[in-house]
C-alpha cells in the first residue's frame, strides 16, 4: 500500500534532520496517486495535497519515525481531521416527532438504510415510524413494509399518492400513534432532475426535518462531488450515510463528499442485514482510503 511505497522512497533519506521540500514533493506524488486510485475526487485531491504540503515541509524528523513514516502520519492525521475528526451523532431536536429524511441517487441503499436506522433507534429505546414516500419504484412500498415487519417497526403508507402529502400525514399519524421519530424513505433520483429535486424541497418544507441524510454508495467515483454538492445546495444536508462499505472499495467518495459539503458522515452500511449499520469512524476511514 501507500505506507510501503513511501517507506521504499524514503529509505535512503534516513538520518536527516528535517523534512525538505523535495522529500515532500516526492511523497505527494505517491499520495496523489493513491488517493486518485481510491476514487477521491481530482479537485479534492489537489486541495488535500496542498494542505499536507504546508504541514509537512520543514517539520523536524521525530526520533521514533522515519521521514516516510512521518509524512504518512501527517497525511493520515490531516485526512482524519478532514473527515470530521471524531464520530458524529444524529441530532434529533426537541420537538416530537423528530423527522429524519433519507435522500440520494437510485440504488444507493436508502430503503435498506432507513430500516437499519429504525432498528438502531428501537435498540436505543425510541419508537420510530417508517414512511413510504417512494411512490414510483415498483414494489418500493412493499419492500419497506417487509423490512418494517422484520424489525417490528410500523410503516406508514398512503399507496401511490403525492409524497409531500404522505410526509405531512405521517406526522399526524406519528403523533396519534405515539411514535417519536419519523423516518422518510424517498425515491432514488438524479440530482439533475429538477422536478424530483423540487419534490424533495417540498417535502422538506412540509415537515421540517431534523436530519436530511444523503445516502451514498461507497463505490461512487469522481461523480460523488457533483451529487453531494447538488443535494446540499438544494436541501441543506445535515449528514451523510455511506453504504456498502462491506465491499472492497477504498471508498474515496467519503473524502470527496465531506470536503465538498462539510457534512458529517454519521453512519456506514456494512452489509445487507438490518443490523449492519455502524457509527462512522473518521480514523478508520482514513486508513482504508490510504490503503
Amino acid at each position, binding site marked *: 500500500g501507500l505506507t510501503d511505497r513511501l517507506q521504499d522512497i524514503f529509505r535512503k533519506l534516513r538520518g536527516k534532520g528535517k523534512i525538505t521540500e523535495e522529500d515532500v514533493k516526492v511523497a505527494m506524488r505517491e499520495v496523489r*496517486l493513491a488517493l*486518485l*486510485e*481510491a*476514487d477521491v*475526487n*481530482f479537485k479534492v485531491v489537489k486541495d488535500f495535497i496542498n494542505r499536507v504540503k504546508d504541514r509537512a515541509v520543514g517539520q523536524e524528523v521525530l526520533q521514533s519515525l522515519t521521514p516516510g513514516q512521518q509524512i504518512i502520519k501527517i497525511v493520515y492525521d490531516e485526512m482524519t481531521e478532514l473527515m470530521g475528526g471524531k464520530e458524529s451523532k444524529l441530532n434529533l431536536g426537541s420537538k416530537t416527532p423528530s423527522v429524519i429524511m433519507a435522500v440520494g*441517487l*437510485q*440504488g*444507493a*441503499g436508502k430503503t435498506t438504510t432507513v430500516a437499519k436506522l429504525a432498528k438502531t433507534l428501537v435498540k436505543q429505546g425510541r419508537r420510530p415510524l417508517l414512511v413510504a414516500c417512494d411512490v*414510483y*419504484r*415498483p*414494489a*418500493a412500498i*412493499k*419492500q419497506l413494509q*417487509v*423490512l418494517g415487519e*422484520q424489525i417490528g417497526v410500523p410503516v406508514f403508507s398512503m399507496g401511490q399518492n403525492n409524497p409531500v402529502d404522505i410526509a405531512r400525514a405521517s406526522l399526524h399519524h406519528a403523533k396519534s400513534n405515539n411514535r417519536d421519530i419519523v423516518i422518510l424513505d424517498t425515491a432514488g433520483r*438524479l*440530482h*439533475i432532475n429538477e422536478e424530483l429535486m423540487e419534490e424533495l424541497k417540498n417535502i422538506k418544507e412540509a415537515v421540517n426535518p431534523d436530519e436530511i441524510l444523503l445516502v451514498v*454508495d461507497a*463505490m*461512487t*467515483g*469522481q*461523480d*460523488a462531488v*457533483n*451529487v453531494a454538492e447538488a443535494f446540499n445546495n438544494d436541501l441543506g444536508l445535515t449528514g451523510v450515510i455511506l453504504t*456498502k462499505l*462491506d*465491499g*472492497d*472499495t*477504498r471508498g*474515496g*467518495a467519503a473524502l470527496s463528499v465531506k470536503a465538498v459539503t462539510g457534512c458529517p458522515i454519521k453512519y456506514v452500511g456494512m452489509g*445487507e442485514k438490518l443490523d449492519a449499520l455502524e457509527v462512522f469512524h473518521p480514523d478508520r476511514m482514513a486508513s482504508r482510503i490510504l490503503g
Partner: protein
Amino acid sequence: VKTNKKLDDDFYEELEEILIQADVGVETSLELVENIRKSARKNKITDSEKVMDLIKEETARILGVYDTSLRVETDEKPAVILVVGVNGAGKTTSIAKLAYRFKQENKKVLLAAGDTFRAAAIDQLQIWADRVGVELIKHQEGADPGAVVFDAINAAKARKADILIIDTAGRLQNKTNLMKEISKVRNIIEREIPSAPHEVLLVIDATTGQNAVSQAKIFKEATGVTGIILTKLDGTAKGGIVLSIAKELNIPVKLVGIGEGMEDLRTFDPVLFAEALLE
C-alpha cells in the same frame, strides 16, 4: 472543448484531468494521453482540436472492437441470458428493459426470479413482467435460486420460449460465499443446456469508480461475462471505467441504461460514448 490551444504540457495535463474526472482511472488515462502525445508528435499535428479528435477516435476504437449484439439466435432454445452484478446496479430494471426490447422484436420471452433473498425483489420483477407482458417463473422468497433457475429452464423449454432472462440477487464481489452461489447457478444452466448461458451480462452503475474493474474481474472469474450493461448514464457520471475494463479484461459494453422506464435502453455506441467522455 479545447480549440487553438498550444500543445504543451499544460494541454496534455488538462487532457489527463478530463479523463481521470470521467473515472477512466489514473493508469489508463496516463497511457492514453501518452500514446496520443506520441502520435501527435509523429504525425506533426499542431492543432489542439485535431488532437482531441485523435483521442476520441482512439477511445472509440478501444471500445468499438467488439460485437455489441446479443447472442439470442441459438440452435438450442431458449437462448439464456444470465444477469449479474453488485447491489443496486440496475439488474432488475435492465431485465425489464431487455424483455421489452425482445418483445418488440416479436420474441417469446420468459423471466426467472432468481433473487430469492432481497425484500420484495420477486414482487418488483413481477410488476415489470406484467407491465411488459411477459411471464415470470418464481418460487417463494427464501427458496434456492438454483431451483428457480432449473424450474425456469424447463418451463422455457416446455413453452418454447425464444429467450429466458434470469435475474439474480445483487452481491459484492468480495463475498466469496455469494460468488460461489452464482458460479453454482451458472453451472446449473450449463448442465441443463450445454451451450448456455449464451450471454452473461454484468450490470455496472455508471457512477461507480475504480471498484468496477474489480467487479468485472471477479465476476468474469465466477461466471464468465460476455458483456456489460452500463446503467444510469442519464446522470452526470461518465462511466469511464469501461475503458480499463475493455483494455484489461476484453469485456465489451453491449447496452446502456439511460433512465428508469422500460424503453430506456440503448445499444452501446462507442463513438457517442467517446464524444460524451471527452467533452
